[in-house]
């Protein structure tokens, strides 16, 4: 995914990193505090962009769910088809039982 939100998230992270590097080289407290305030705002926006990015990526997960449900339904059908085979064999067995009884009756005639 290369969305606008991802680009924004990347850009904000990169800006935060630049400021962190600058902070690491200054020994002036006033300048450091000013950089820290900027970084605080950027950090907040990274969280906001990160939230949107997470929502966007999660939507892609949701898109794939439909196909998994379809495959799951196919497996269910296959299970039912085995059950049908079992039922069919059982029915034939029951039918043969009836035939057996009928033959017995005919023999008594």
């Amino acid at each position, binding site marked *: 995914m290369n969305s606008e939100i991802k680009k924004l998230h990347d850009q904000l992270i990169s800006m935060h990193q630049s400021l962190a590097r600058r902070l690491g080289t200054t020994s002036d407290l006033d300048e450091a505090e000013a950089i820290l305030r900027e970084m605080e705002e950027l950090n907040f926006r990274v969280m906001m962009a*990160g939230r949107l990015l997470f929502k966007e990526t999660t939507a892609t997960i949701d898109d794939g769910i439909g196909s998994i449900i379809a495959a799951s339904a196919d497996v269910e059908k*296959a299970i039912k088809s085995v059950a049908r085979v079992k039922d069919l064999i059982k029915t034939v067995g029951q039918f043969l039982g009836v035939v057996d009884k009928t033959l017995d009756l005919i023999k008594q005639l």
Partner: protein
Amino acid sequence: MIKDRRFRHAAAVLSVAAVFVVLVGCGSTNPGSEVPPFRQAVVTADQQTSSAFADVNRFLRGQQIEHALTQPTLNEDLFFEALPSEDLAKWSRAFSLIDSYGEKLELLLGEGQRSGVEGELSVLGQKIQEVDGDQLPAGISAAFTRFGGLLVQLKAERDAHKAIRKADPAIQQVFSAMMEAIGEDAGSGVRGTVRVAWAQILARISVEYLRDSSQSARRLVVGRYVEALDERDAEDRVLGSLRLSLASLAKAHEELAYDRSGSAGALLQLIQDEYKGYREELKAIRERRGADSTNGGTQ
């Protein structure tokens, strides 16, 4: 004579069937034994994701509190769920659906399907003998019962493979999206957001260092700085390991779909154990620091 011919015919059918079973059996691996560990790994990944994301949300909420303290006014726009609950619920639902799909596969490939059919065939064999009155040669009825069971097993395996192949692109898409959301490195996705929050914590400590001029005070600040670095790295290892778990799950499913013998299954177990190790490490760091994790440890 008739009985003998019937026996030869049945034996020939069984021979052909045996060859067929061997040939079909050689063509594919039985996914039946690989589905249960896959399902177990999906459930574990679901639990690990939930706890890791709950941790991330607590940590980032702490950072929002720190940010609010720098603002002239207080309002609710300053606070939000960094990873929204409704999206976390979607992740959980995706894991549940994959597990439910695995459960059905397990049922289809389970011994119960085959033995159920064999049971019915055995009853049918007895009925046939009762009706006919003419006994089948010894062993033939049992052999047909077993053959029927094998056919059902082969059909179940073929159906399962078909479904697994159908599901595979979507499964790959889901796990790939999850991996992307977590972030392929410490600078992207959730890992990127968390890393920036840690950079902010480190920046606050750096400014404290400038404010404190005494050597002893600075020593304490440096100690906190180093602890924060350790915790940052441990937290990233947890998220990185989680991402690797998802990659292995995707690989394990791909192996199931394309009959490749599984190296992913064993790897998955290793990674999930590694994840537990990283969680323990993170817990130990936090306990050592003795601070509340909601503020990310260090302000």
